[in-house]
């Protein structure tokens, strides 16, 4: 897995090298030799990109090193996350994926049909209640689910064709013969 990630990283940085290496393939596909004709305007942006990303990497390393050297001498302590004075923070209070995406799913609420289970606390002395929201996969339900169910429903109607009575099976053969004869010989 790490290897694959590093490979992506390498290709990102070494764009021009990869393009030249693949020149043979792209050349034969595009029907002309050499890199220039396969990707005419590609070389210059790739050089720029490699240079820029190289700079970013170097800057990142430089800043990390300075940061480490700055902190070397100082006292680095561990403490609880800032809870604005609330000390009993638990993992359940953390932002989950659904809550993270809530503003956007709320924004596109019309399409996404968020499912909410449970509700807000009610009454003066409310007993414990819970709220769970879930965003179903809209496309799977409408684009694939509904037609698939329709097709399967139609198909189960046709399943009676294999009803097990042998006489009718042989009648099928006779009828097919008759049908083909009528269709093709008249």
């Amino acid at each position, binding site marked *: 897995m790490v290897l694959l990630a590093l490979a992506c990283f390498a290709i990102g940085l070494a764009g021009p090298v990869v393009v030249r290496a693949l020149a043979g393939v792209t050349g034969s596909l595009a029907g002309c030799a050499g890199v220039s004709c396969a990707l005419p305007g590609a070389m210059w942006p790739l050089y720029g990109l490699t240079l820029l990303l190289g700079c970013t990497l170097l*800057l990142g390393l430089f800043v990390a090193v300075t940061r480490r050297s700055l902190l070397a001498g*100082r006292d680095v302590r*561990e*403490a609880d*996350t800032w809870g604005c004075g609330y000390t009993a923070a638990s993992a359940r209070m953390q932002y989950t994926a659904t809550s993270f995406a809530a503003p956007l799913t709320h924004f596109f609420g019309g399409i996404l049909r968020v499912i909410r289970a449970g509700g807000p606390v009610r009454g003066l002395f409310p007993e414990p209640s819970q709220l769970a929201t879930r965003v179903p996969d809209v496309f799977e339900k409408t684009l694939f689910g509904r037609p698939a169910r329709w097709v399967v429903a139609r198909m189960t109607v046709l399943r009676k064709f294999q009803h097990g009575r042998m006489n009718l099976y042989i009648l099928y053969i006779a009828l097919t013969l008759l049908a083909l004869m009528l269709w093709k010989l008249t």
Partner: protein
Amino acid sequence: MTMWLQKCPGILLALLLAPAVSGVINKVKALFAGRRGPPVLQLYFDLFKLLAKGAVYSRTTSWLFRAGPVVSVAALISVLLIIPFGGPSLLSFPGDLAVGFYLLAIARFFTVLAAMDTGSSFEGMGASREVQFSALAEPALFLGFAVLIRMTGQFSFSEIFGSMTASTWATQAPALILVAVVLMVVLLAENARIPVDDPNTHLELTMIHEVMVLDHGGPDFALILYASSLKLWVFASWFAGLVVPRGVGSPAASLAATLGGVLLAAVLVGVIESIMARLRLLRVPQLLLGAAALAAVALLLVMK
């Protein structure tokens, strides 16, 4: 070698003067409020003080929390490499537009990751709002630059702003004005200025950008403050590059003119922050979609 020297001042100015921009904004707000306000160089003092301090890390955080500020500073400095300032940028190639936006996105992504890493519900909330607003601000930004690409036919920052001469202003004034407004709105949204987010509020529930960096301390916080000032500088230089037409005069003159443009942007932000109150959170998407609509109108103007 001379060609490199001729391009250097832009980035050097950026690295040096970036923290001053927020000082100017606070000075303008103070003048409006009738008080003396903090000195313009206040941010520099904060930075040096923070760099000298130790650090406190939450137990739940991992290497990701420490990598956040580093990556955002590195990404923003490399964006500055391709941003023209008065003259051509240090590095420019067709398509650096897209790389620039991606680098901004990387910086934002790592800041959000660092915020989520702490596991606090405040930072999670801030991160989720940040992501929502940037998701809505990006279309406006892209449409705005699409107008500029369509107008100039170039696909790189320095070529676009290089050809932003008085003549283009004369012919395309209405579209350019709209794009300037869009750039200003996106600047306000992306850099957590007043209408969208209040930079110096102390109530965690209302913050967006500040709450994400709640748990950072010492040098990390310094890096974050510096990164956000660089980000403000990037957006301000876009605004200045647009508003101040390039062309006549020596390179030094156009450099000074663009600096004036950045100053103008800072003053404008200060004025807006003084006369407007924060928008309700539900209003912000409408503001951003309005900006996107303006950009679309500008695009239609240019397209016909």
